């Protein structure tokens, strides 16, 4: 009896916190299917009829389609650019002995701890001069560089686990260092590359503040900016249903990725935090 009681006491906080996490997210999805009148009459309950009107309104009247497209471009281009820059550097830092190796690694890693806000003001003018302000490709470059330290950090630790003998024998067989990097190291560190790419993609898809600073015109808005815009508008238009629908559109890809790569994502983030 006492044991049963203590089990319930221990579980109660767990259950409560689980509800606190799930309920608001679930409620957001439910709200996306409610009409405005229903949201006012019964804000936290189930809808009487599921209508998809909010989604079509968000998609058509609030240009969410353009923002989804922009977010996709920024995410894909940003993630690819990060890999192109991070893989060779991670390999050189992990496997090649040269003076300054340690210094360079520390330089990249310490950039993870330094507040980047200060850099955003000069970056704004730099992008302006390069004609990359208010440009989703400019934003992709900024995103890619911002995730470089994290990516290099995770990739070096993955590459460290590849046996050196493989590269040595490949080099003996006459494979150039470029060949070793491309044909041996890259395929063998695929686990790390996938982990890093998923983390970066989620980061870029979700990112808000740099987009707020570096994008200006509505046709370039990423999803986060579009949602923020709808949210500010909703105070006057009361288009809450539309807002929920766009929130749902933003979160569904993240849920799907999390469902598939749950272990990788939580492991990647935990290790990034612990060793960083």
């Amino acid at each position, binding site marked *: 009896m006492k044991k049963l009681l203590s089990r319930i006491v*221990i*579980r109660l*906080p*767990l259950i409560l*916190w*689980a509800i606190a996490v*799930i309920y*608001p997210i679930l409620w957001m999805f439910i709200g996306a299917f409610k009409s405005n009148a229903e949201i006012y009459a019964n*804000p*936290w309950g189930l809808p009487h009829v599921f209508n998809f009107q909010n989604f079509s309104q968000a998609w058509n009247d609030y240009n969410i389609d353009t923002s989804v497209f922009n977010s996709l471009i920024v995410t894909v281009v940003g993630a690819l650019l990060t890999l192109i*820059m*991070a893989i*060779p*550097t991670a390999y*050189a830092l992990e496997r*090649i*002995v*040269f*003076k*300054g190796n340690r210094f*360079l690694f520390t330089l990249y890693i310490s*950039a993870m*701890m*330094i*507040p980047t*806000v*200060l*850099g*955003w*003001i*000069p970056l704004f003018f*730099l992008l302006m001069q390069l004609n990359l302000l208010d440009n989703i490709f400019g934003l992709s*470059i900024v995103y*890619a*560089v911002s995730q470089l330290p994290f990516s290099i950090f995770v990739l070096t630790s993955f590459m460290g686990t590849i046996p*050196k003998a493989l590269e*040595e024998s490949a*080099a*003996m067989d006459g494979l*150039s*260092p*470029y060949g070793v990097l491309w044909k041996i190291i890259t395929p063998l560190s695929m686990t790390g590359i996938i982990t890093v790419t998923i983390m970066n993609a*989620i980061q870029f*898809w*979700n990112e*808000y*503040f740099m987009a*707020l*600073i570096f994008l200006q015109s509505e046709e370039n808005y990423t999803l*986060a900016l579009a*949602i923020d815009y709808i949210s500010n508008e909703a105070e006057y238009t009361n288009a809450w249903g539309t807002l929920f629908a766009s929130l749902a559109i*933003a*979160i569904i890809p993240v849920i799907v990725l999390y469902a598939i790569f*749950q272990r990788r994502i*939580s492991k990647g*983030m*935990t290790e990034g*935090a*612990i060793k*960083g």
Partner: protein
Amino acid sequence: MEQAMLRRKFDTERTGYKSQCSREQIYKAEKGDTMVQSKKQKYLFLAFCLVPTMIMFSIFTLYPLFNGLYYSLFSWSGSSSAAEFTGMNNYVKLFNDSIIPRTIFHDYFLVVTKVFGIMILATFFAVALTQLRIKEAPFYRIVFFFPNIMSVVVIGILWSFIYNPSLGLINSGLELVGLDSWTRPWLGSEDWALPSLVLPSVWAGIGLFMLMLMGGISNVSKSYYEAAEIDGATEWQQFWKVTLPLIWPQIKISILYIVITTLNGSFIIVQVMTGGGPNNATHVMGSYLYQQAFQQYNFGYGATIGVMILILSLITVLIMQFFMKREKVEY
């Protein structure tokens, strides 16, 4: 400058391509020419690996940071001709700006409340999920972590609704249990807006630190607990005397990480949920920088605030590392 340093490094470099290259060199030692060539090739390869990335990193991360320090000495409204060197004027303005001490206080308020809120709950959940064989533990682990990968925009808007004065869950809940007098416009109240921001931050952050602590706990050998049990230690004593000292490294890293990410990023949730209002009651340093630089076009002053953020967060991290020096316990 960065590139020049790198190039000099390549030129003076003498060491080999780790074991692989040295073997190659012995192999090719008979032909003296090829050795020189292979060394040249090594530097070419090294440059291929490092230089393009370093150039991008220098342009988009290092240069802006240093340039930010430089900008803080100017009075500048954005148009290139109007930049006027004003020396320390921006810093004088910073010390006389009555909003600045408030933003600093708000930042550290969030740091302290988040550290306590997250660490207490995360430690409790981590211990519960590892020590007390709960069958559905993976479910809790997966659910608790999910908010960590949600966009701050989504979190902020969702919680703005929870706090909504008329529709929100909190006020409706309070009315339901008869505490009508406790209802208030949470985010619209000067006294309650800032504390209201703590809950979403804790909600969004707990999963990561719970996992970090769980990693630490699962590394603690079972024999310590067996020994403690033989000595008659209660579960509570086991927690204080065994678990806590042994996962101290993880706790230390978690606290540091919360402090750093809060000082460097708390302004995002502030911007989404309150925009610094009402009446500056929730402005943190970062959101004030955004307002000064990108809404009022005081770019020079904005950069000065940025320098302040940089210095304060460096000092904070140094002080914390000094005070948390307690080394890992070995039994």
